[in-house]
């Protein structure tokens, strides 16, 4: 189980996070006993990069599960090793302070502290990010957006920040900005299938609210994004879910004698030709079949198929059931 501490626990289900944080006292104790006065590289393994990655992730898990005491220990250990002035440690300290803050006044104080740090050293990225996160969590969406845009202006190759900005824009319903941001994320990490799927989802959402005119094109874009995400990651549930949803919608929109290429998209713009109706139908069938397979195997708890999140499985099943109900009618 320690190995999963090596990976950031952002998307761990709550039960796993709890399990991890329950190991905290043990890990922290182990960590403190094996201290030699001088670290001899062959004899003591107390100083691997993994040690600190584990501590950091442990801190996050502890904060999630409310184990503030262990979290404080983690912060102290990290501070002891890397010093008060380390950017990353400062960010983690800020995170801890935010988590244990009792009321709004505490948060205000923290905010002032962040501002002071940033005034002194504007390149402190973790603190700048904490400040933006704090702005967002206190409901000042506008300010957070402005701060994030400024942050991205000075550091436009930060995928995390772009993703956060996309999320911010999405929460305000600004689809085209969201799409732009997600594309920017993809430019930095071109093979992130989850971002491809996310982009598909956002495009689909924007298709829902757009008028009749451009909806087919948006849906086709969305389908392509989902296809790409599945291509990158086999059996990706979100990808198949989106694919089924979008192809279904497109099929319901298109008249049966739909003629591509001439009607929807201007070929002079150099856009790829939209898929033919047969392709869309075929994709829909495949997505349905795959979803059914994933749901069945996951529920049966087959080996290698148990990594799906329960909520997503339930949603997929609901989608399938709806489909069945429609057919029966």
């Amino acid at each position, binding site marked *: 189980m320690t190995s999963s501490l090596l990976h950031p626990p952002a998307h761990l289900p709550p039960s796993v996070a709890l399990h991890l944080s329950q190991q905290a006292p043990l890990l922290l104790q182990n960590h403190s006993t094996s201290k030699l006065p001088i670290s001899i590289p062959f004899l003591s393994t107390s100083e691997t990069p993994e040690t600190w990655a584990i501590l950091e992730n442990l801190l996050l898990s502890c904060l999630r599960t409310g184990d503030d005491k262990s979290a404080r220990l983690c912060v102290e250990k990290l501070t002891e090793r890397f010093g008060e002035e380390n950017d990353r440690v400062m960010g983690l300290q800020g995170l801890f302070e935010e988590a244990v803050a009792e009321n709004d006044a505490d948060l205000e104080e923290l905010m002032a502290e962040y501002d002071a740090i940033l005034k002194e*050293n*504007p*390149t402190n990225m973790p603190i700048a990010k904490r400040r933006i996160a704090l702005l967002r969590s206190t409901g000042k969406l506008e300010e957070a957006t402005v701060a994030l845009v400024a942050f991205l*202006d*000075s*550091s*436009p*190759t*930060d995928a995390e920040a772009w993703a956060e900005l996309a999320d911010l824009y999405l929460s305000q319903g600004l689809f085209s900005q969201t*799409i*732009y941001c997600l*594309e920017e994320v*993809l*430019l*930095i990490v*071109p093979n992130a299938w989850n971002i*491809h799927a996310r982009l598909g989802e956002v495009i689909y959402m924007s298709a829902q609210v757009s008028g009749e005119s451009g909806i087919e094109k948006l849906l086709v*874009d969305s*389908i*392509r*994004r989902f*296809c*790409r995400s*599945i*291509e990158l990651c086999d059996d990706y549930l979100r990808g198949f879910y989106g694919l089924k949803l979008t192809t279904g919608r497109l099929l319901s929109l298109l008249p049966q004698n739909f003629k591509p290429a001439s009607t929807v998209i201007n070929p002079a*713009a*150099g*856009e*790829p030709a939209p*898929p033919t109706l047969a*392709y*869309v139908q*075929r*994709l829909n069938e*495949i997505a349905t079949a*795959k979803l059914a397979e994933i749901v069945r195997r996951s529920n049966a708890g087959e080996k290698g198929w148990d990594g799906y999140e329960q909520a997503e499985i339930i949603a997929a099943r609901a989608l399938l059931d709806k489909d069945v109900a429609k057919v029966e009618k």
Partner: protein
Amino acid sequence: MAQALTQTIYRDPALFYWILFPITVVMILTGILRHYGTVLLQAAPKKEDIKGRRETRSLLRGITLRNNAPVLSRSSFQARKNYIIPAYQSGQFLKDPDAKGQPPPNPMTDPAGMEQMMGMMKGNMATMIPQTLIMSWINSFFSGFIIMKLPFPLTIRFKSMLQSGVATRDLDVRWVSSLSWYFLNLFGLQSIFTFILGNDNAANQMAAQMAQMNPGAGAGGLFAPGQDPDKMFQNEAENLEVLEHWTVLDGVEERLLDDLDIV
């Protein structure tokens, strides 16, 4: 042909214990020492100011746009191009836009350049000093006699180097003195260091020499000192301008269907 007879020389086995092993052990230990010495000498990464970071990362953004352009659809790529190329050409991302068009600072006087040179010097010293020390140690202690026979023949040119101090004209080149054992160690111990110290160890001087051959190829040095950032932006703008765009989304449905149908 009396020459064809293999020459045999009887040597004291103690030669091995008192020369070969000490040299090997010393070489290994020096390698380890050099590794940790270099780690110690490495200057902490310099704090860059926010303008400088903006400059570097903006350029990096252009490069990633060029490299990863296929993930975008044609229209989004066009939109980005329309934004980024004029910005590059007008020097919008420069650290200080007023300096545009001025000649770059002399690398010898530029403090940033000096620092980099110092770093290179340190690296060089760390390889040069132990090497010369060990060579002179071997020369003063163990020269003047033969210690071993190489299992493979060499040309006569090596005679003066590998049998230095042994004034025997007719001796086969395969009989060598301790200095050649040193050379063998120098090259052959690379892999041992990889085992002991990990792959990117500083004891590995082959890698160090490679790095000296083409400086700037490594990460971090996007802007080599003495290079005009404005020039680099202009170059990148040009690269983007001529980039032939294609997208992975082209025909992705067909590919996917092909893949899944087979399964």
